[in-house]
C-alpha cells in the first residue's frame, strides 16, 4: 500500500479526499447512532429513515428549485407532519409545565391551553410546509421569537452575574426589552434574506425528522421497551418502522432517485493536484462540529451525565428521580437530527432516493461498530476510517466490490477486535 501511494501520490491524495468527504457523512451518522445506542441499547433502525427524511425534507421544501417541484408538495404529507409536530409539542408542554402548573390552574384549563398552543404550532408547521417558497418570511417570526427568548435569557443571566443586586423588575424589563429587540432584528433580517431559505430548509427538515423520532419513541418505543426482553425486539420493530417509512417515502416521492438543489461550494478546488468540493469540506466541518458539540453535551453538562446514567441502568435512573422518558426523547431527537443532517448533506453531495435510509444506516452502523460502540471518539474515527477503507480498498480490486470490502472489513474487524478501535470505557 505504501508503495502504491508513493507510486501514484496524486491518486492517493484524491482517494484520501474522497474518503474524507464520505467519511464525514459516516462519522455524523455514527455519532448519532452511537449516542442513541449507548443510551437505549438497541439498534434503532428508524435512524436510517431519519436520514432519508432529512434529505427528503429539504427536497420537499426546496421543490421550486428542483425539476417540476411544484407537484411534490402534498397536503397529506404536510398534514401528517403538522400532526406529528403538534403531538410532540403537546407532549413537551405537558412534560414541561403540567406538573408545575397543576396546583395553580385547573386541569381542564391547562389541557385546553396546551392543546391550543400545540394545535397552533401544528397549524403553523403545516402552513410552513405547504408554502416552502416563502420559508424565510414564514419562519422569521418563529426564529425571531426563539432568538428573543434566548437573548432575554442570556441577558438575564449576565445581569444577574454582574450586578447581583439588581431589582427583579428592572431585571425583567431589561431582559424583555433587549430580548425582543434582538428577536425582532433577527426576524427582520431573516425576512429580508431569501437566500437563507436553504439553511432554513435544513433546520426545518432536521427538526421535523427529530420530531418524528420523538413521536415514535413516545408513542411506540416507550411501551415496547417496557415489555421487551431483548434488544432484538426493538431492532425488529424499528425495522418495521424503517420499511414502512421507506415505502411511504417511495409512494409520496416516487422511488426514483432525485437530485437536491445545489447548495454551495460545488466548484472543485484543486489541492495537491487533486480535487475536492468546498461542500465536502463544509461537511467535514459539520462532522467535527457535531462531534465536539456532542462531546461537550455528554461530558460537561448535567443533561449529558443523565444520559450516560440512563445508558448504564435505566430503571435505577428512574428510581433516583430522572424523568427517563423525557431524557431519552431528547436523545432520540438529537440522534434523529444527526441522521437528518447526514442525510441531507450526502443528498446535496450526491442525490437522494427512498432507499438511501437503509444504505446510510448500514454505513453508520458499521462505522460505529468499527469505532467501538458507545464511544464518541470511536464513532468519528470509525466513520473516517470506513470512508478511507472504502476508497483505498478498491485500489487493486474492481470498484464493484466496494460494498463487499466494507463488510469484509467489518467482519474481520469484529473477529479480531470485537470491541472496536476505541472501546467504551
Amino acid at each position, binding site marked *: 500500500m505504501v508503495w502504491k501511494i508513493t507510486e501514484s501520490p496524486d491518486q492517493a491524495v484524491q482517494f484520501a479526499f474522497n474518503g474524507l468527504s464520505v467519511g464525514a457523512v459516516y462519522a455524523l451518522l455514527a455519532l448519532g447512532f452511537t449516542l442513541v445506542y449507548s443510551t437505549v441499547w438497541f439498534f434503532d433502525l428508524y435512524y436510517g429513515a431519519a436520514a432519508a427524511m432529512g434529505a427528503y425534507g429539504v427536497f420537499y421544501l426546496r421543490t421550486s428549485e428542483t425539476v417540476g417541484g411544484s407537484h411534490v408538495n402534498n397536503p397529506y404529507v404536510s398534514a401528517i407532519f403538522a400532526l406529528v409536530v403538534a403531538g410532540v409539542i403537546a407532549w413537551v408542554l405537558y412534560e414541561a409545565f403540567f406538573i408545575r402548573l397543576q396546583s395553580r390552574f385547573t386541569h381542564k384549563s391547562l389541557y385546553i391551553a396546551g392543546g391550543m398552543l400545540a394545535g397552533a404550532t401544528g397549524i403553523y408547521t403545516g402552513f410552513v410546509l405547504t408554502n416552502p417558497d416563502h420559508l424565510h418570511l414564514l419562519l422569521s417570526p418563529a426564529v425571531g421569537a426563539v432568538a428573543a427568548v434566548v437573548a432575554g435569557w442570556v441577558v438575564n443571566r449576565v445581569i444577574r452575574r454582574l450586578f447581583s443586586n439588581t431589582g427583579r423588575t428592572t431585571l425583567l424589563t431589561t431582559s424583555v426589552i433587549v430580548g425582543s429587540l434582538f428577536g425582532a432584528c433577527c426576524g427582520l433580517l431573516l425576512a429580508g434574506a431569501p437566500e437563507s431559505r436553504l439553511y432554513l430548509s435544513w433546520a426545518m427538515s432536521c427538526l421535523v425528522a427529530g420530531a418524528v423520532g420523538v413521536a415514535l419513541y413516545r408513542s411506540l418505543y416507550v411501551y415496547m421497551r417496557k415489555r421487551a426482553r431483548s434488544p432484538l425486539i426493538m431492532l425488529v420493530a424499528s425495522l418495521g418502522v424503517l420499511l414502512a417509512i421507506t415505502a411511504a417515502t417511495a409512494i409520496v416521492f416516487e422511488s426514483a432517485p432525485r437530485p437536491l438543489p445545489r447548495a454551495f461550494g460545488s466548484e472543485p478546488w484543486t489541492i495537491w493536484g487533486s480535487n475536492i468540493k468546498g461542500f465536502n469540506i463544509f461537511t467535514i466541518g459539520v462532522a467535527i462540529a457535531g462531534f465536539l458539540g456532542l462531546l461537550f453535551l455528554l461530558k460537561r453538562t448535567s443533561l449529558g451525565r443523565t444520559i450516560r*446514567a440512563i445508558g*448504564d*441502568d435505566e430503571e435505577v435512573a428512574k428510581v433516583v428521580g430522572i424523568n427517563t422518558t423525557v431524557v431519552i426523547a431528547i436523545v432520540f431527537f438529537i440522534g434523529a437530527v444527526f441522521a437528518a443532517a447526514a442525510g441531507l448533506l450526502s443528498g446535496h453531495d450526491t442525490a437522494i432516493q427512498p432507499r438511501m435510509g437503509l444504505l446510510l444506516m448500514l454505513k453508520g452502523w458499521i462505522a460505529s461498530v468499527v469505532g467501538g460502540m458507545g464511544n464518541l471518539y470511536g464513532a468519528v474515527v470509525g466513520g473516517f476510517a470506513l470512508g478511507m477503507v472504502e476508497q483505498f480498498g478498491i485500489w487493486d480490486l474492481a470498484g464493484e466490490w466496494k460494498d463487499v470490502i466494507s463488510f469484509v472489513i467489518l467482519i474481520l474487524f469484529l473477529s479480531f477486535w470485537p470491541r472496536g478501535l476505541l472501546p*467504551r470505557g
Partner: protein
Amino acid sequence: MSDVEEQDGQPAITREDNGSAGAEGNVLEDSFILEMVNVSVRYGAVSALEDACLGVRRGEVVAVMGPNGAGKSTVLKGLMGLAPVVAGQVYWRGERLTSATHEIVKHGIAFVPQGRRLFTHLTIEENLEMGCPYLRDRPEVRRRMDSVMELFPVLHQKRRDLASQMSGGQQQMLALGRGLMANPELLLLDEPTLGLAPNIVKEVFQTVALISERLGTTIMVVEHNIKGVLDIVDRAYILDTGRVVFEGTPASVRETNILAEVFLGKVQRADPDEP
C-alpha cells in the same frame, strides 16, 4: 474498610430541613406516612402480591421479611411504581400516590434496589450527584455529598474512579449513599447486605441504624439476614406467597417463631401431593 468505626466522635451529618417536617410529623405521629392498602400486583398470570397492607410511621425502621418469592421486592417496587399494581392504593402522608417513578423521588422517597445497581460508567462523584439529579442548588449538592462522604470515607478516596472499579461492599455503600443524596424522608432498601462480607454487613446495618437515628429518616428494609436486621428495626412484616402473614415487633417475631412456621407451611405445599 471499617471506616465508620474508625471515626471518633459523631459523624457530622445532620438533617437541615426538619423544621417544617417536624411540625407536620407531630400531627401524623401515629399514622403511617407511607401506607399500602390492599395492594395486589400481578405479573401476567403470576400473582406476586395479594391484598397486601403495610405501612411505615415517621422515623421508624421497618423490616420486610419472608421466604424467597414471597413478594418482598415486589412491595418496594410497587411503592416505587415499578411493578404492575392491579388493585389497591398507596398513600403518602394521607394522599394517594399515583405519580410516575421519577416524581416519587421528589416526594422524598428514595429506593436502593436489590443488587447494588450503579451507574457503572460514571465516577463515584457523578453517581452521588445522580442521587438528586434535579437539584439545581450546587452548594446544597456539595454539602450533601460531603456528608455522605463523611459517612463513607472510602467513597471520598475513590471519588474520581468509575463505579465499576469498586468492590461489592463499596458498591453497596455507594448505592446507599446515592439514596441518601436525595435527602429522603423515607428510604427503601432492598437486601442491602446481599453478598457482602461480614464486616461490611455489620457496617451496613450500623449505617442504617445511624441514618435512622441521626437523620430521623424513616426506613423500610427487605432482608434475609434476620439476625442482623431484627437488631435494628422497630417493627417487622412477614410475607408469604404474596400475603402479609405477620406484623409485629422484633421481640414478637423472635418469640412466636413465626418465620419457621411460615417456612414449614411452604414446605408442606411444596411436597409431592400436588395436582
